C-alpha cells in the first residue's frame, strides 16, 4: 500500500515536472500573445483617466479669449468629435496645411483660445507627477472614433504630396547605424528581441492593427502615449536627434501610415507593453 502511494507520488511529481518543463519550453511568441491578452482589459486600462481629463480640458475656458475648444474644427465641423480621429491627418484650408490631431489641437489652442502653448508644449509628453494636456486631449478625442474605421481618401493634392513625402521619409536611411523606418518595418513576422514588428510598407493587417491601437497606454512607461510620441521614440532608437513635435515631416509620416491602415478599425486608447 505504502509502496503504491509512493509510486503515485513519484508519478505525480514526474507529470508536474513534465508540465512545468513544457511551459518553460513554450514558444516565446505564444507567451507574448498570452501576455498581450492578459493586459488588454479596457476596464483596467489607466488611459481612461486620460480620456476623462481630456473631456474636462476640451470644455475648459482658457487663453486670452477665455474660450473652450468646443468650437475647434477637427475636420468634421466645429465641435464635432465623433469620427474626427478616423480621418486624420487631413488638409485644413483655414491653416493651409495637412495636420494630424496634435498639430490641429495646437492650432485651435492658438486661434480659438489664444492660449500661449509654451506650457502645454513643455508637458507634451507626460511624466511621473506631470500630466500632459496633449495626451489627455488625444485620448478623449481618439476615443470618440473607437469602433469606427480609418478613412484616408487622400482627396486633396496636399494630402497626396504629404503621403509621398511620408513614404520617402519612411525609407530614408541615416545617422550612426544607417537605420530607416523600413529597417524594422518592412518584413512580415519579424521581431526585435521578443517584440513583434509590424510590416508598415503595405496596406493591410499589420498597419491596421498598429494604427488602430494608437493612442495607447504603455505599461513599460506608465503613460498614455500618442503617435507623435511613438515616432519620437523610433527616431531615438534610430540615433537621430529628437524630431520637433508637430512638425510637418512627422505629419507626413503619419498620413503615410494612416493610409496603409485605411479601412482598419480603431479601438483606442488601447494598452500595450
Amino acid at each position, binding site marked *: 500500500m505504502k509502496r503504491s502511494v509512493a509510486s503515485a507520488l513519484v508519478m505525480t511529481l514526474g507529470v508536474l515536472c513534465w508540465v512545468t518543463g513544457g511551459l518553460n519550453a513554450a514558444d516565446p511568441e505564444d507567451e507574448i500573445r498570452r501576455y498581450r491578452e492578459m493586459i488588454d482589459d479596457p476596464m483596467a486600462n489607466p488611459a481612461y483617466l486620460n480620456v476623462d481629463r481630456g473631456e474636462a480640458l476640451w470644455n475648459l475656458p482658457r487663453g486670452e479669449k477665455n474660450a473652450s475648444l468646443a468650437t475647434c474644427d477637427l475636420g468634421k465641423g466645429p465641435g464635432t468629435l465623433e469620427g474626427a480621429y478616423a480621418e486624420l491627418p487631413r488638409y485644413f484650408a483655414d491653416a493651409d496645411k495637412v495636420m494630424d490631431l496634435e498639430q490641429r489641437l495646437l492650432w485651435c489652442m492658438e486661434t480659438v483660445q489664444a492660449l500661449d502653448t509654451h506650457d502645454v508644449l513643455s508637458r507634451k509628453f507626460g511624466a511621473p507627477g506631470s500630466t500632459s494636456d496633449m495626451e489627455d486631449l488625444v485620448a478623449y478625442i481618439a476615443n470618440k472614433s473607437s469602433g469606427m474605421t480609418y478613412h484616408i481618401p487622400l482627396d486633396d493634392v496636399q494630402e497626396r504630396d504629404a503621403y509621398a513625402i511620408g513614404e520617402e521619409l519612411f525609407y*530614408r536611411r541615416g545617422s550612426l547605424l544607417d537605420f530607416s523606418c523600413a529597417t524594422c518595418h518592412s518584413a512580415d513576422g519579424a*521581431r526585435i528581441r521578443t517584440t513583434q514588428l509590424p510590416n508598415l510598407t503595405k496596406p493591410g493587417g499589420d498597419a491596421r492593427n498598429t494604427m488602430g491601437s494608437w493612442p495607447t497606454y504603455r505599461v513599460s512607461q506608465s503613460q498614455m502615449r500618442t503617435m507623435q510620441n511613438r515616432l519620437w521614440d523610433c527616431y*531615438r532608437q534610430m540615433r537621430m536627434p529628437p524630431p520637433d513635435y508637430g512638425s510637418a*515631416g512627422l505629419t507626413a509620416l503619419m498620413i503615410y501610415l494612416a493610409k496603409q491602415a485605411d479601412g482598419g478599425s480603431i479601438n483606442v486608447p488601447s494598452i500595450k507593453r
Partner: protein
Amino acid sequence: MSLQSNANRPARYAAIIVALVAATSALAESATPKGPAEGTAGVERYVREMWASSDAKWKDRLKQDETQVLCSRFRNNPPEPLAQSIQTREAATIVFPKDNQVLGRWQEGEKLAQNGRGGQFSDAPDTVNGGNCYACHQMAKSELSFGTLGPSLSEYGKIRNFSAEAARDTFAKIYNSQATLACSSMPRFGAHGFLTEQQIKDVVAYLFDPDSPINK
C-alpha cells in the same frame, strides 16, 4: 542581409532601369533625379524642418553619406552595377588590426551583443556603445530573447570549423556589412566608429571562440 525580398525585384525592374539612369546622372551632378529618386530634394527640406530646433552637433546626423542616399533612393535594392560600386567604396573603409589578430575576449563580446545602448539622445554622453546583436540575431541558444531580422548566428564558429579566414571575414562584416552586401540592413559598426576595433574583435571572439556559448 537585405530585408527587401528578392521577389520584389522583377516587379521593380522597369523602375530600376529608369532610376539607374537618373542616379548615374545625379552622381554626375546634372539631371534632376527621376523614378524612386523623385521628391528626394523635397524630403530633405522636410528633414531640416523636422529637426529645426536641434543643436548643431546633433544636426550632423541629418547629413547622409552617398551610400545612405543611394540605399534610401533604391529602397535597399540598388541595381547591380550600383551595388558593386557601393561595395567597392565600403570595402575601402575597412581597417584590419595591425597585428591581424581579429579575436578578442568572447566574454566582453557577449556583453556587447546584449547591450543596445549608445548614440541615442536619451543616453548619457559617456555611454559605452553596444552592438545589440541580439536585437536581430539568435546567438547562444540559452538566450531566448532574440530578434529575427537577421539570420541565426548559433554555432557560428563551429559550423565554420573555427577557421581563421572566416573569422577575418567576420571582422570585416561587422566593420562594414555593405562591403559584401550593398544596402544591407546591418549597421556599418566600424566604418561609423560606433564600435572600436577592440569591441569588434570581442564580438568576433564571441562568434568564434570554441568556449563561447554560441558554439555550445
